[in-house]
């Protein structure tokens, strides 16, 4: 296995049969690369064909990168290369989140003023992970809506507060 830090993007060959749809993912990944740099190398075979990292390549192109890090691996044959390419994608589905541990880590990052969206989780997902349950606040909103508490609106014409 050989590691090349600055491999020319133009020399990389896309594996035409890649069974992954990655347009949306590459968009998100380009943001991650901007934040962290291109850390995870693309894996290519002895002929320069990408076997893992098509999304990374698309993201690199979006960022107009001329070189990327690669790992070159000599596969025994085409079947082994294909098998690896599929298994590499599939294996990412096996692990699961430990949400309590994740919440702890996110809170630590938040404490360091780190932008949590750079972890790849969107706002709604972060809400679910991070928010302490303010159950009284949750019900208070309903009480306002159902009229248990008067609702105040501001007249768009005169600016006066009106109780409804």
């Amino acid at each position, binding site marked *: 296995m050989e590691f090349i830090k600055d491999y020319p993007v133009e020399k990389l060959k896309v594996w035409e049969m890649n069974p992954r749809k990655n347009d949306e993912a590459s968009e998100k990944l380009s943001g991650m690369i901007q934040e962290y740099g291109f850390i995870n190398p693309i894996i290519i075979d002895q002929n320069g064909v990408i076997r893992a990292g098509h999304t990374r390549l698309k993201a690199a192109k979006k960022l107009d990168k001329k070189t990327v890090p690669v790992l070159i691996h000599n596969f025994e044959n085409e079947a082994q290369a294909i098998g690896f390419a599929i298994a590499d994608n599939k294996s990412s589905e096996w692990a699961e989140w430990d949400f309590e541990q994740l919440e702890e880590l996110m809170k630590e990052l938040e404490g360091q003023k780190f932008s949590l969206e750079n972890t790849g989780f969107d706002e709604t997902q972060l809400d679910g992970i991070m928010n302490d349950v303010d159950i009284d606040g949750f*019900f208070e909103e309903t009480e306002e809506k159902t009229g248990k508490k008067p609702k105040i609106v501001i007249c768009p014409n005169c600016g006066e507060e009106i109780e409804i």
Partner: protein
Amino acid sequence: MKMFLAGLGSRLDVQNLFKQRIYVLESFYYVKEFMIPYIEKYWDLLLDSGAFTFMENVKKHVDWDDYILRYADFINQYNIRHFFELDIDVVVGIKEVERLREKLETLTSKKCIPVFHKSRGKEYWLRMIKEYDYVAIGGIVTKEIKRKEHHMFKWFLETAKENDCKVHGLGYTNLEGLKKYHFYSVDSSSWLYGNLSGTIYKFNGKTLLKEKRQGRLKTKESANNNFKEWLKFQRYADEHL
């Protein structure tokens, strides 16, 4: 977690798949004659009153007492164990829902599954989970509980657990969320909507993956596929979620 599949009545063309043990949520309003043998022999049924749909369809004053009589008759005739109360808080108000619930429970001599709405308030929830051993949370599909408020389920599920009360998440089918919020049961008709939009579901051993196929599968084929895949997920969820 029991993942009840809903909307089976609308896909007669795949009813060859219905003759097996399945968790099914069906609405009393939609129960059809052909379903009776499945209900009696195969399905583990969760029965919804269908009151809201009924009201929308008749478009006139509804005699809810008459509706309750017919609903109770059906429950008694087919010995349905789990059935929801009339989920019509927004139509008749909570007091009337409570009166109808009491009547339903008297007529069936069984406790129903009350359907909690955010508007009922915190104390109501705490009382419900003490009085019932199986309750439901409604207003998820209608976004009465907003997506960004879903983390509140933690509190609902924890308080219910402290009272040995099971919770059904009505229409809650967020596949990621199901791993996080351990409802006793949920229901979904997503396999049906997949058919409409040409989405093919594939169970990967842990979850369902969606794939869009334009015009490559006939509706019956996609219904057949999606039902089978959701059923695999139902079996997986039953054991692992």
